[in-house]
């Protein structure tokens, strides 16, 4: 049994992890930058250690300081959360070398799924469909052109080390391909320190369907259903739900197929702990592997609500060496869950970040409403980190109820002093296409494409 866990993260996920630890009777150590001294995770943990200045590169990404903190606090394990060092194989190695358990996948799996190009190759090997594309990294312009000719336009150029929608460019012809190839590479170099790119067929307006997997150290791997994350703005997820209305309404057999594919890939990678296998699905029900996220994800709560399984606790138990006590038979999906990511951004001003002091805060409540957030009235949101201030999750017996609760909860959610995306999400929930469950990844663009501005303003 772990006695103490260090949470190598901040914000809402640090609070989430601390809560799971407390419920398991495990003591917690928070780490924080100087900008986060008043953050909720620091208050909730049993101990807190300052690890540097505001810049993440001088604090949350400092492996030496995290390990030092873990040593002086004498912890058994580190939970890396999401983002930061959660998918950093070197960090996982350093932890193990220092006798600190890393709560995440083992090094072998991390390496097998090291980057998008490698994962794509492994998926192929596992018989999982991948979008037609290059065989690994595209080394130069000529190769880019040849690949695109072979698979046919439109194509998408992607950074192998990319994330958050950066280092990606779509191309519809040779001219935009060459331009996009070079731009994607420079962007990738700047953002991730790695300019390597690969090319895939660009499936236009796909649906983003991902599968939650859990693997224990004995080799048992399960999937816990899908999440539909097609509601995205600039490749950032805004609203997620499970089950996917696309699958329920149109392609019922896809659930089993995609689930099986995800598990097969995880098995071949000898995956352990929690992970998410992402797929894109086209309008004809064809699905293609995208990538594996080797960590707990932001939107994990919706899976928890429909399965009744606490994913963060499972992560901790798996890391402790416990075998999965749930079997496929035990996984029952009940009801419908939706999550809205509440960001401190102004939807009326190009989603400009809105850091600052929260004046008044009233969080929604009632049956089937869950708020995962670290903010409080009087808290000043620092400007150095992402703008996620909380997640609003609703659970209903069916999609209709979950949506109605979400609209109700959004209307109750009061945050003053800063701008938030709440009015924007309210507009999404009221949109007739969203309510019908008919949407793909171009939904937000269409919503914002002019005609809907009045709707958003109305809901403010």
């Amino acid at each position: 049994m772990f006695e103490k866990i260090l949470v190598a993260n901040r914000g809402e996920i640090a609070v989430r992890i601390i809560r799971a630890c407390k419920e398991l009777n495990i003591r917690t150590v928070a780490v924080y930058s100087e900008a986060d001294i008043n953050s909720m995770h620091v208050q909730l943990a049993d101990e807190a250690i300052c690890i540097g200045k505001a810049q993440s590169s001088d604090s949350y990404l400092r492996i030496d300081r995290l390990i030092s903190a873990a040593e002086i606090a004498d912890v058994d394990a580190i939970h890396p959360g999401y983002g930061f060092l959660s998918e950093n194989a070197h960090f996982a190695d350093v932890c193990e070398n220092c006798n600190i358990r890393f709560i995440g996948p083992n090094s072998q799996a991390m390496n097998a799924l090291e980057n998008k190009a490698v994962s794509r190759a492994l998926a192929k090997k596992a018989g999982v469909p991948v979008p037609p594309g290059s065989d690994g990294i595209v080394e130069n312009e000529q190769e880019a052109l040849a690949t695109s000719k072979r698979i046919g336009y439109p194509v998408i150029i992607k950074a192998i080390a990319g994330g958050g929608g950066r280092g990606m460019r779509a191309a519809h012809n040779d001219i935009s391909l060459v331009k996009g190839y070079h731009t994607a590479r420079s962007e990738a170099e700047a953002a991730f320190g790695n300019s390597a790119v690969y090319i895939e067929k660009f499936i236009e307006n796909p649906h983003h369907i991902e599968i939650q997997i859990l693997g224990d150290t004995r080799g048992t791997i399960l999937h816990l259903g899908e999440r539909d994350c097609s509601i995205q703005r600039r490749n950032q997820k805004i609203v997620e739900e499970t089950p996917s209305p696309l699958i329920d309404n149109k392609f019922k057999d896809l659930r089993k197929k995609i689930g099986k594919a995800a598990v097969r890939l995880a098995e071949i990678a000898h995956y352990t702990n929690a992970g998410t296998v992402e797929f894109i699905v086209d309008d004809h029900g064809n699905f293609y592997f995208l990538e594996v996220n080797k960590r707990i994800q932001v939107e994990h709560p919706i899976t928890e609500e429909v399965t009744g399984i606490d994913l963060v606790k499972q992560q901790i138990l798996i890391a402790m060496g416990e075998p999965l006590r749930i079997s496929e038979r035990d996984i029952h999906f009940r009801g419908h869950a939706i999550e809205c990511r509440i960001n401190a951004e102004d939807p009326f001003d190009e989603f400009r970040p809105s850091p600052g002091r929260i004046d008044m805060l009233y969080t929604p409540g009632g049956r089937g409403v869950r708020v995962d957030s670290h903010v409080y009235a009087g808290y000043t949101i620092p400007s150095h980190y992402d703008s996620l201030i909380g997640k609003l999750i609703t659970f209903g017996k069916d999609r209709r109820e979950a949506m109605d609760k979400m609209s109700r909860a959004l209307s109750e959610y009061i945050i003053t002093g800063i701008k938030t995306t709440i009015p924007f999400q309210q507009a999404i929930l009221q949109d007739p296409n969203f309510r019908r469950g008919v949407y793909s990844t171009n939904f937000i663009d269409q919503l914002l494409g002019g005609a809907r501005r009045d709707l958003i303003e109305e809901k403010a």
Partner: protein
Amino acid sequence: MDLKDIKAIIDLMKKNSISEFELEKQDFKIKLKRGFNGGPQLLPQDEGLQGYPVQHIPSASQPAPPSLPAQAASNDLEIRSPMVGTFYRAPSPESGNYVEIGSEVNPDTVVCIIEAMKVMNEIKAEVKGVVTQILLENAKPVEFGQPLFKIRPT
């Protein structure tokens, strides 16, 4: 009157070089006195109230407060930890401490070691002055930015 008010009065006294302050209200009397005593003393870190005794005077006479620490001037600099680790005052358990209160330091003087991941990091003073306070005990854990020493610059 609460602690906040008392701290505010003390700050005002410091700022205006007032050495004595007395206030009497209906059933409450407070007297604040800035004392100066010679001799080095180690005090546990107590922000804002170091060296300032607060006396409640229910009756006319009160014994003198216990000896006060050497008065730290308000322009003393702090040496703060640049890393997370364990603080050691000496290079090894058998050696003497790097510095004591009253020790003179130069920018290159090693004042302590912070051990992180089995590596002993020598921490330099980076200023020229005299050590006026040692803010934590040997072998205690330190976090980033934690104050270690107070130095009066010369």
